[in-house]
């Protein structure tokens, strides 16, 4: 610990400065605030519905123990019952009528003991309800949703990379009349969110017969202005001499594009790919509007559908929310430096 603090305080050279205190408070609060809810989510996703409904909530997932009692076909839940003489016995509940529970001692199943429901608390143990994760795949269509999300994400990203890089190449390495106009137009769409055009876009999609199809979800999203600008900024740094040299070698423009420009833009492409994957994976409003067949739902739409109202099965919702976070977290853990260096390097200056 002292080595760490020595390292940390190296620049200060003299004990704790108020900026160090603020720093540490900020960092610790950051961990609690940023990671805390996600950790809470993961732990809650392993709880049974009964455990989720209780308040105050417990951190770990608990499940009421059950015992098989001879003479009864189904396992019975176990309770700690406060007996009138002050002792506590572990009894299994046969049934509850009104405010009185009929309990039976698992070891002496013959006699029925009546206990007020106020005097009993369930016997609990920690148990991770893994079923929350497997059941939605088996019983519901979460595997379909997952597949659709993967399809949309991969295809959209591929198209985005191709189409945006071509446009960025044109905008960075060519002079032509109307170039500024085109750039302004693309910039303008940064200011026009989906919600502004969603109603007429819906009718356009309908006219193109792309309703209720994954292509209707993919196509409107691929001409991203952010992508074009990101790549353009980066391509501006590619020296024109390379292109001129290639042209003198009789390379076609297409070859220049895909042999010189693309490989040299790889870091920016990687950044855009990561952004595109995250954006498409997390898209919600547009797939919600376009898709009506359930087998085409993406994961986010599927989540929202199941988080409806009366049929709210929070344990499944939470588990599937965690599942939907996994690719994003993976990208985050392994590709984080791409993102951060990408944002830094590709010229958002």
């Amino acid at each position, binding site marked *: 610990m002292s080595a760490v603090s020595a*390292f*940390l305080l190296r*620049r200060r050279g003299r004990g704790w400065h108020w*900026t160090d205190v603020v720093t540490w408070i*900020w*960092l610790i609060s*950051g961990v609690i605030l*940023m*990671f805390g809810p996600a950790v*809470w989510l993961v732990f*809650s996703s392993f709880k049974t519905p009964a455990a989720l409904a209780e*308040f*105050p*909530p417990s951190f770990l997932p608990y499940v009421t123990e059950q015992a098989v009692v001879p003479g009864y076909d189904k396992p019975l839940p176990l309770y700690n019952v406060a007996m009138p003489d002050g002792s506590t016995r572990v009894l299994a509940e046969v049934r509850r009528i009104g405010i009185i529970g009929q309990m039976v001692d698992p070891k002496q199943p013959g006699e029925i003991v009546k206990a007020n429901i106020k005097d009993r608390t369930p016997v609990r143990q920690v148990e991770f309800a893994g079923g929350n994760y497997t059941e939605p795949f088996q019983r519901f269509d979460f595997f379909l949703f997952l597949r659709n999300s993967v399809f949309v994400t991969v295809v959209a990203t591929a198209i985005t990379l191709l*189409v945006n890089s*071509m*446009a960025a190449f*044109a905008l960075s390495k*060519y002079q032509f009349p109307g*170039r500024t106009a*085109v750039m302004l137009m693309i910039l*303008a*769409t940064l200011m026009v969110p989906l*919600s*502004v*055009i*969603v109603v*007429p*876009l*819906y*009718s356009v999609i309908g*006219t*193109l017969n792309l309703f209720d199809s994954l292509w209707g979800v993919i*196509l*409107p999203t691929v*001409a991203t202005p952010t992508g*074009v600008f990101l790549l353009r900024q980066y391509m501006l*740094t*590619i020296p024109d001499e390379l292109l001129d040299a290639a042209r003198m070698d009789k390379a076609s423009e*297409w070859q220049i*594009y895909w042999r010189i420009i693309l*490989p040299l833009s*790889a870091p920016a492409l990687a950044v855009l790919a990561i952004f595109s994957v995250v954006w498409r*994976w*997390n898209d*919600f409003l547009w797939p919600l509007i376009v898709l009506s067949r359930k087998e085409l739902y993406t994961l*986010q739409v599927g*989540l*929202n559908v199941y988080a409806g109202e009366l049929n709210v099965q929070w344990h499944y919702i*939470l588990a599937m*929310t965690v599942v939907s976070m996994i690719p994003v*977290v993976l*990208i*985050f*853990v392994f590709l*984080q430096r791409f993102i*951060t*260096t990408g944002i*830094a*390097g590709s010229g958002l200056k």
Partner: protein
Amino acid sequence: MTAKTASSEPSARTGLRQALLAPVRLVMGLVDIPMRGWQKLTGLNGMAGVFLAPNMLIFTVFVLLPLVINFIYSTTSGSAIFLQNRTYVGADQYRILFDCGSYLDPSTCAADTFWAAVRNTAVFVVFQVTVMLIAALATALILNRELSNRGFWRAVFFFPVLLSPVVVGLIWKWILQREGLLNYALSPFGFEPFSWLSDRFWAFFFAVFVSVWAHMGFYALILLAGLQAIPRDLYEAAAMDSARPTRIFRRITLPLLMPNLIVVLVLALIRAVQIFDEVFVLTGGGPGTSTMYITQYIYETGFASSLRNPGLASAASILMGIVLVILTLVQLGVSNRNEKKGARQ
């Protein structure tokens, strides 16, 4: 920043890369043939058009066309979706939108929900962008320090950016509900369980809080990049002069960071005006309409409400688009001026 990464990869992987790229190379080679032909036709600069075409095609069909249609849409009424089935009413929808006793008081307006949404959005933008900038700047300053495991700390603050808005909304809704974690955490201090999202002030507070929570890391990273571009020797010189941290901040950091701050301000502003997904999942626009912002108004009026009115939604969305354009142009103008000033320094 070096562009080539191939040379630093282990050789075992290059074999796989070659195998994966082979079909791609083939396709690209085939495409080259018509491309050359096209190039002969149009000349060098004409090829720009070819490269631009796919992007612009998609852009025209799926962004520009709906934008244009939107203008026409806003002059129609009826509940039909396709333009040809709607009835033309001229500027009627705009008249309804602007029919107000006093613009500052939504309850005197015909389209009171619209003006309530506008007012809510204005208030939200002011608070959220301010909080966002301060939080992002503070985080960037702290992350810029010499910390061990800086990557980990960066990850901590960037993590929520990657979550989908549905997930963000659900997580916080879960925490803020009456039987949720927040009430549980406050109960040892004697607070009764409180339904946070059913109170107008707290719903707004948490709308701001949750959206800052979800996006702050992104802006912090941009600012961090800007901070790291500031030459170290400036700081060292200041340290030798025993300058206080606040002085360093005001005289060195802030001016040199200004371009990045402007960028962040523009982005945050544009995003804040368009806020929808996470707030919608979190509060549904409630209580009443106190967290209904303009995007949700458009969504409800155009799609979701049983009293839907696509023409009115369209008109509202045009107005919102105009505001966004004005905002952006103003900010770009300011940033242009600042850049020129900075360049002169």
